[in-house]
């Protein structure tokens, strides 16, 4: 058993990405102010880097010492807030979660996220993205819970198995990387996108939620869940391992009736266990 574990760890070590140590890199930053009618161009800025320097660190260095006018959105610097999403060398990533040493070449190209309306430099408009998220009603709807009547207020018990069904999907930080990588969103503006659909599944599968049919109706639309081509790019760019493509496929399975009675069976099992 131990040998197998050691073998696995050794294999993981072999597949680990090579780190390239450099003393400086050239940041190629996309610059444009759409509101002012400016056309896009790239500014090349040389930035000193250490082994642990992230792309966000490099950008903030450039902003502090070279060009304070660079437009960038960031906050937590620890992949929790999802503010610093951008295309780094063509791939949607979080700038605070991408070390320069992980990237190939001595030039790092940073561009605004695709599929979002552009505002300025690396800043994009998230209004439509959040609107799709809001459409899914991302909160528990339960008529049996009367939060006004404190005397009747009780907790909703959940088993670890119930929690496991949605836990992975609740790690979403709404960074928009999946939305930016989605080929369907690129062509269909009405498509809710992987983030909203995986959140629909997150609440749909939560046994405390009672708005099952309502949520089904929301995504069962001409431009809804069925327009996903299952390219899987959303899952490959997700920095939190949410796997939105899995959520979409599971929800589709429910809609096709593969696991229609899963909740009812789970309730029955729970009741039998109690009896």
């Amino acid at each position: 058993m131990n040998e197998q574990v050691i073998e696995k760890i050794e294999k993981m070590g072999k597949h680990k990405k090579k780190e390239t140590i450099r003393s400086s890199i050239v940041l190629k930053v996309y610059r444009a102010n759409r509101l002012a009618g400016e056309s896009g161009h790239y500014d090349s800025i040389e930035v000193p880097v250490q082994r642990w320097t992230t792309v966000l660190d490099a950008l903030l260095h450039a902003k502090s010492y070279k060009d304070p006018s660079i437009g960038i959105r960031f906050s937590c610097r620890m992949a929790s807030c999802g503010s610093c999403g951008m295309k780094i060398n063509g791939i949607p990533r979080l700038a605070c979660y991408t070390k320069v040493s992980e990237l190939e070449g001595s030039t790092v190209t940073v561009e605004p996220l695709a599929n979002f309306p552009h505002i300025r430099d690396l800043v994009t408009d998230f209004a439509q993205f959040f609107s799709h998220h809001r459409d899914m009603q991302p909160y528990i709807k339960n008529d049996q819970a009367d939060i006004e009547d404190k005397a009747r207020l009780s907790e909703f018990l959940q088993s670890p198995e119930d929690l496991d069904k949605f836990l992975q999907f609740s790690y979403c930080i709404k960074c928009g990387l999946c939305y930016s990588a989605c080929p369907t969103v690129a062509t269909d503006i009405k498509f809710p996108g992987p983030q909203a659909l995986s959140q629909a599944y997150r609440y749909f599968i939560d046994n405390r939620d009672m708005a099952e049919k309502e949520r089904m109706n929301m995504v069962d639309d001409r431009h809804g869940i069925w327009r996903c081509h299952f390219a899987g790019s959303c899952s490959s760019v997700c920095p939190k391992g949410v796997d939105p493509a899995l959520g979409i496929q599971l929800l589709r399975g429910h809609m096709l009736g593969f696991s229609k009675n899963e909740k009812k069976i789970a309730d029955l099992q729970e009741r039998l266990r109690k009896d």
Partner: protein
Amino acid sequence: MTMLRESQIMKIHYITGIAALFVVAIHIMMRLIMPYNMSLEYENVIANYHNLPYVVLLESILVLIAIHGFNGLRVILLELRQSKAWEDGVTILTIAAMMAVVAYGTRTIIFANGLGFE
């Protein structure tokens, strides 16, 4: 302008796709019961149309592939533009085209079979 929910349409899409695989497989296998060239000779083709189970098979291929194919086309076209007029237009056009293809194909099968015309 929705008679069916998208999930119901997609269920039909998947079922017709899987069913078409089977009937087309039988259709291809029927070409192999004799030398391929011979199976496509005029007499043999007409003989196929006079064989009732084979006629049912041909009609089901026609219907299944028309439904699956035209719904696939509708799905592709829906992604091109997003407006109610375009979406309704695409839906009506693809349904009309599907019905026209099925009607024309059925007419060919009936004529080749000689049903009611002999």
